[in-house]
């Protein structure tokens, strides 16, 4: 009868429903993979890209599962940024073939992962394609033209480097943010004059009235080196070092197969990526797949205790990103060197097949 009686009842009903739904919500949350005490993980959450690279061999043949000692749960990523987000959200254990640009950003932002290996040194595989009809012969010709690239990627990084090196600003050249597939569509419509991207989009545009405008040699020399890397969540690699080593071994084997039996390798990659073996082979030939041994050298990641040159590449990339306002601040070189952990790589290289 009194207001209080009702008020209490109303509040009780509200509380009860709130509690029930709160419990329902929490119960619905995915169970975080509790790191069990033991040498092998149950599941390894891997973020990967569907692309024409030897990574697809090891995935398709199940080598990753076999050598790492656990079942891999594969999540396809659309960009390196997605892998970073997933790592920050603790939804991934390993990021496969994440670009050096997002990796530098991730390390600068203290995301909880370490750089444990390289997939490739990109080199000529990502480069500028220009429309023949646009008549672009030298850098200055880009003025007033429209160039597309996926923002945040290694291609974007190289493109911005290209502009800087040639004293072009974003007022001279219109830079558009397009995913590779959208670039192909835009190219077909004639909406863009050039694109900085990787295959298969690159190959498609070349075949449709495009020609190559090589920039990589000059840019690599000036320090705009880009690479695809393998990162592992720090918590995961501390708990399961053997799994990480095994993972890298699996990749090493895939690399071996590409070097010794390219035709077979291309066939497997083609099937995984949904392209013809010829396309797969041609795409893979553009990359510089650095062997595990060479990755350990001073040129690249370096060996445990002895930092390699790649840390400087990451530092330079991060500094550039700061200028671009993409990240707030870049830490010093030492932080990058610390973020590179080659102990697993060294073990993997030792245990040849």
């Amino acid at each position, binding site marked *: 009868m009194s207001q209080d009686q009702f008020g209490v009842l109303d509040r009780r009903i509200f509380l009860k429903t709130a509690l029930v739904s709160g419990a329902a919500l929490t119960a619905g949350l995915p169970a975080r993979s509790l790191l069990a005490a033991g040498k092998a993980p149950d599941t390894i959450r891997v973020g990967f890209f569907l692309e024409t690279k030897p990574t697809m061999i090891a995935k398709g043949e199940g080598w990753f599962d076999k050598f790492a000692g656990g079942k891999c749960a594969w999540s396809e990523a659309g*960009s390196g*940024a997605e892998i*970073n*987000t997933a790592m*920050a959200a603790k939804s991934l254990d390993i990021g496969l073939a994440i670009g050096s640009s*997002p990796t530098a*950003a991730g390390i600068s*932002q203290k*995301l909880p992962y370490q750089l444990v290996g390289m997939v490739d040194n990109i080199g000529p595989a990502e480069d500028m394609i220009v429309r023949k009809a646009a008549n672009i012969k030298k850098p200055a010709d880009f003025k007033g033209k429209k160039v*597309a690239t996926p*923002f*945040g990627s290694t291609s974007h990084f190289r493109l911005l480097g290209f502009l800087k090196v040639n004293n072009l600003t*974003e*007022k001279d050249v219109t*830079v*558009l*943010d*397009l995913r590779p597939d*959208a670039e192909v*569509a*835009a190219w077909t*419509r004639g*909406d*863009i004059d050039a694109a900085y991207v990787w295959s298969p989009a690159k190959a498609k545009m070349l075949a449709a009235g495009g020609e190559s405008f090589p920039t990589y040699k000059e840019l690599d020399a000036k320090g705009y080196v880009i690479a695809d890397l393998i990162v592992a969540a720090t918590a995961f690699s501390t708990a399961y070092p053997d799994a990480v080593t095994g993972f890298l071994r699996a990749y090493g084997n895939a690399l071996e197969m590409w070097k010794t039996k390219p035709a077979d390798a291309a066939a497997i990659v083609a099937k995984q990526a949904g392209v013809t073996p010829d396309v797969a082979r041609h795409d893979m030939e553009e990359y510089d797949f650095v062997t595990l041994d060479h990755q350990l050298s001073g040129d690249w990641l370096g060996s445990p205790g002895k930092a390699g040159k790649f840390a400087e590449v990451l530092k330079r990339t991060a500094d550039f*990103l700061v200028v*671009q*306002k*993409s*990240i*707030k601040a870049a830490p010093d070189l030492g932080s990058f060197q610390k973020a590179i952990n080659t102990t697993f790589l060294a073990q993997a290289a030792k245990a040849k097949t």
Partner: protein
Amino acid sequence: MSAIPALGSLWRALGERRVTAVSVLVVMLAWVGATEGGLVDDLFLPSPSSLWDGFLDLVENGYKSRTIWEHAGLSLERVLSGFVTGALVGTFLGLAMGYNRKVEAFFSPLIEFLRPLPQLAYLVLLIVWFGIDETPQIILLFLTALPVSAIAAMDGVKGVSVLRMQAARSMGASEWQVFRYVVFPSALHEIFTGARLAVGVVYATLIAAEIIAGSTGLGWMILDAGRFLRSDYVFVGILAIGIMGLLLDRLLLAIEHRVVHWAGRD
């Protein structure tokens, strides 16, 4: 000395708003406590100070070679273009549908299909067909606003008192006059309600639209900042979008009050 009684009367004057004020205060304290106190990493929830810094930074230096006002302006332009075109065409269509059963029967399945259709799903198709400039974005927003306005206008016409229409006709009014002086004014309230709904939906779709090529717009800015996990920019952008949305809604409300001052009465 006079501060305390002044505070006291302020407290009394606030009345019910005190509860709101306390609630806001609690939220702010929790926010500051969690972030400055180090409970939550800056990446997940920026502290008020870093948000403020981010805001100043955006205002001073812009985002990726455009000022934040330019980004906001471009977003607003898109919202308005899509909304105005969609609402106009939709209202016309709805009026026709309300008046004529045949027109309604013809367009009904198309409207019923279009209305619940998730916008992002056909966005990809629009990009492929219409290119990468403003066109697909405006078309998307147009198609978002159209069914909402059409249904509202249709309901508005159908809700008109038949007695009124008959009375007007019996007084010798032509169909056009009946429409202009009886039907349209009565339906206006519904049309405006539909317009407000449409603005809401278009605004929500705006972010989806700015995923298309372009390096501009508040929605694009949030997405791009999110790529590099710049939570401070993301938050500022979200707040800006929220405030802009609120203002738009209030604006429409004010317009409705000026124009439809007889709403609610029958």
